[in-house]
């Protein structure tokens, strides 16, 4: 798992089914920027989780979807 890299595009696609493409991409890229990962097209697994955890701080459906996406990311990685 430590060698796994995750394309940042994959992260917003985890959210897009619930909040739509545009909002999902905006939320993920904004979160990545907030924690200093915006210039990284590929993230480590822990970095990807950190981005989703940042998005999960958003109130409402965006945050809930990010929380759920974290568990789906774990499921996919296991």
């Amino acid at each position, binding site marked *: 798992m430590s060698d796994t890299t995750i394309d940042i595009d994959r992260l917003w696609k985890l959210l897009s089914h619930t909040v739509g493409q545009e909002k999902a991409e905006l939320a993920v890229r904004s979160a990545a920027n907030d924690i200093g990962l915006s210039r990284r097209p590929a993230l480590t697994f822990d970095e990807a989780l950190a981005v989703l955890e940042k998005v999960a701080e958003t109130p409402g459906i*965006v945050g809930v979807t990010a929380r759920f996406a974290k568990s789906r990311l774990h499921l996919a990685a296991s």
Partner: protein
Amino acid sequence: MTTRLVTAHAQGDAAQAAATLVDSLRSQLDGASPALVMFFASTDQPVEALAPALTEAFADAAVLGSSTAGEFTERGDAKRSVVAVAVAGDFVVHGGLGTALAASADEAVKAAVEGIPATVEGYPHRTGLLLLDPLAGNGEEATLITAAYLGDDIRLAGGAAGDDLAMKRTVVSYGARAEDDAIVAAVVFSKAPLGVGVCHGHRPISEPLEVTRAEGGVVHEVEGRPAWEVWAEHTREAAAAVGLDPDTLGEDEVGGFLLRYEAGLASGDEYKIRAPLSRNPDGSLGMACGIPQGARIRITESVPERQIESARTAAKRARAQLGTDAAGAIVFDCICRNLILSERFEQAVAGISEELGGVPLAGFETYGEIALDAGDLSGFHNTTTVVLAFPG
């Protein structure tokens, strides 16, 4: 043990209807004890009155109930009535109810699932059942939170309660307890897998539109203008083709109109449909499930042929997951499909039963449908048919 799934339909006041349902279900069960009983009731037969009666009659079963916008069995659909389904066989069912859903989906779901065991020895398969109040405006959050609590391998099926298009108060029940602003969650533990199939038949009729102001379950503005104003503009032509005019709707007609023309959220090549349920005095729209500010939507519609075909597709998908013949099904079907299909809705219901082998089924017309498979990223749907098939 062979599964026995039986259905019943009743009219009259709640006491009469409860007695009729109990007699009919018991007669058909012929001594078998159901693990699960569900009932779906119009506002003429309050859930608060039916829940205690059915819970007392089927004391060893998990009894779940919901108010509806219409109800049906394999024998046809009806309004102002109640239908019930009882399932006996190799099943164990545990569940609960949580309240104050609008204030906190997390706390409500937590309360609903707290009595559900993680496993039941000898019953390796788990399928979650959800009934919730869509007027709380957080159907998708509640669905995803439920899946998170119940575990990554859970599959969910269910529906959002209705109230005969009044859009005022929708009620769900577990056991003898009935509440609005609530969620009911149950898990069916089984020896063989159940089948969950889902399909919608909508297509976009507008260009992409940005939700420029939204909060919780309310879309205030689209493209900088009141949401209703934009809806009316983009639906006027399609509505005229079916004899509707958004500019002259009575207040009691707005809910039905909005359920025909719903929002589509682009997700890859598909659209996740989101239903507006009500128009507020300021022109904002109350949604069954929030659409975040900044999202781009397209207003959608569906035509009767696509609605009938999508119901069959949902049944096919459910049957494919069973691995055996179906004993019957519980169906959660959006009220908007009944509005679009009108007298052809019975044809759609009959198609579901045919696809499953001519089996009994019971269901209700919902304000939202729930279907989430292990690995899915979203579980709350609108304008969709969800078929939960039980193995024979």
